[in-house]
């Protein structure tokens, strides 16, 4: 009897979980489907779900009209660049806050988090003007800098929580064994924190890849990443849902594939320490 109840419960839970999963995934699925429709079918009412004339014409047009590869490379450079620089700054910062906390460490952490509470548009004009004056507008360097800075609090927070899980004895043993601070971080702390660092890195690449506010406002032609590529298809010229969908699909595909392959690592990292 008890077993039957558990089985029923399992089935119900599975159905609910799949439904929620589908609901979350639906917009992406709809975008992908729309990208294979003609413009007329894309705006047809009622919309057809699976039964329409499948066409790859939109992809052809998108590839013809814009240089996808250039946007793609900008996205790669900006997201990977900002993540790597962010990690180089965040690892020692998180180390010091986790292992040699001062009286104000908690306050510093809160302050860093509080910067994420400010709407970015609030600082758009000063940053825009600074970038203009120093010649960073529409450059990859400029975007790497700004994305590093806006994601740094999250990287430090995530690493801080992972580092807190590492027994301080092991770091002290390294100190007794003659390791300098640099060697302690490189040979002992970092390898032990690999799952945490990897998931921080993946999450941050995803955040940077999808970041649209700064990438749209600080770029024009040269440094524009895939977010700008998508935006260029929502034009005032008219409704091009199918082409917009094709562009969106091409923009999210790389990160979606990366996320799919690294999901095990991501989940492990995000629950690291929660289940000891």
């Amino acid at each position, binding site marked *: 009897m008890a077993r039957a109840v558990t089985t029923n419960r399992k089935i119900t839970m599975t159905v609910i979980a799949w439904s929620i999963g589908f609901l979350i995934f639906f917009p992406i699925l709809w975008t992908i489907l729309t990208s294979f429709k003609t413009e007329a079918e894309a705006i047809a009412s009622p919309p057809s779900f699976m039964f329409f004339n499948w066409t790859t014409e939109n992809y052809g047009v998108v590839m013809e009209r814009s240089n996808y590869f250039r946007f793609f490379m900008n996205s790669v450079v900006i997201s990977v660049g900002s993540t790597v620089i962010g990690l180089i700054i965040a690892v020692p910062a998180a180390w010091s806050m986790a292992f040699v906390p001062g009286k104000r460490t908690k306050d510093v952490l809160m302050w860093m988090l509080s910067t994420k509470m400010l709407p970015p548009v609030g600082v758009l004009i000063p940053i825009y003007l600074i970038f203009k004056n120093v010649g960073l507008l529409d450059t990859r360097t400029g975007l790497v800098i700004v994305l590093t800075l806006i994601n740094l609090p999250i990287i430090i927070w995530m690493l801080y929580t992972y580092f807190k899980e590492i027994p301080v004895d092991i770091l002290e043993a*390294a*100190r007794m*064994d003659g390791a300098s601070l640099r060697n302690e971080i490189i040979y002992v702390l970092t390898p032990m924190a690999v799952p945490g660092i990897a998931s921080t890195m993946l999450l941050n690449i995803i955040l940077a890849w999808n970041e649209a506010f700064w990438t749209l406002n600080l770029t024009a032609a040269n440094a524009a990443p895939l977010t700008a590529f998508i935006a260029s298809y929502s034009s005032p010229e008219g409704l091009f849902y199918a082409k917009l969908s094709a562009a969106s699909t091409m923009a999210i595909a790389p990160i979606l594939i990366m996320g799919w392959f690294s999901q095990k690592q991501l989940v492990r990292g995000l629950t690291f320490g929660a289940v000891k």
Partner: protein
Amino acid sequence: MGRITLEKVAKRFGEVEVIPPLDLTIEDGEFVVFVGPSGCGKSTLLRLIAGLEDVSGGQIRIDGQDATALSPAKRGLAMVFQSYALYPHMSVRKNIAFPLKMAGMPEDEQKRRIDNAAKILNLTDYIDRRPGQLSGGQRQRVAIGRAIVREPAAFLFDEPLSNLDAALRVGMRLEITELHSRLKTTMIYVTHDQVEAMTMADKIVVLRAGHIEQVGSPLELYHKPRNAFVAGFIGSPKMNLISGAEASKHGCKTIGIRPEHIGVSATDGLWKGRVGVSEHLGSDTFFYVHDTGLVDDITVRVSGEVALKAGDTVYLTPEADKLHRFDDAGLRLA
């Protein structure tokens, strides 16, 4: 060489003085045990010597050199932690090699020393395993291996056997003692277990609330405890400390008599009592005797053959020359 001198070394955490200024000299090649109840500051003192904590005052000298401001890495000491503190991502070989690698030692010399340490500590079969695949005793041996390859000025042990089961603890205790007689390097060993202190040490430092209560050889502490605290702390089972009228008869505040220094008779003796709980260890038996007319129960240690059971009446007589006398401040009276 490994002569360590502490001069007026003190430690405060904020307003709390954990260790008031103290002086201590550890001679080269000595096996010194810091012992005391938990919270007495013994681990803190060891960490001050290691350099893992900064002193709040005073000076630490290692072989005459002022080491007070040196980082742990520069002091030339090796430490074995209670939690073993092995590097989980490295094999046994790499764990042991780590201090040598940090010192920039040539590969062939590293290999020679690692193989030697592995042989001494019976680690050769596990040399390529990770710490996670080893038992507690093997992990502790790896931690010791990591310490000995450096040939340090002194070894620091912070309760290294606390995480091991009883049988393994006795085995490792012997191994560490043997290691000391082979290497003849200074060892400082922290424990709350007075049996470890008695069996391993050349010199015991008894600590209470950051103060040194007594420094001496195990037998000195056993026979001539400087005060009632040391008397009660050293020896197992504990010394019987008796105050009140019985103590006044001897012209002091408290008298102390060890359980093994009390004669037991079924017919006559100084104190009459009733046997309560008895613990049979085979070789020895401990009796807890009630209703003696003294303030507290008396613990008696007799040979395993003595047959007494709960409720029996016994007569106890302390051996007069083994009686310890303490004054109002708890200090030993001659």
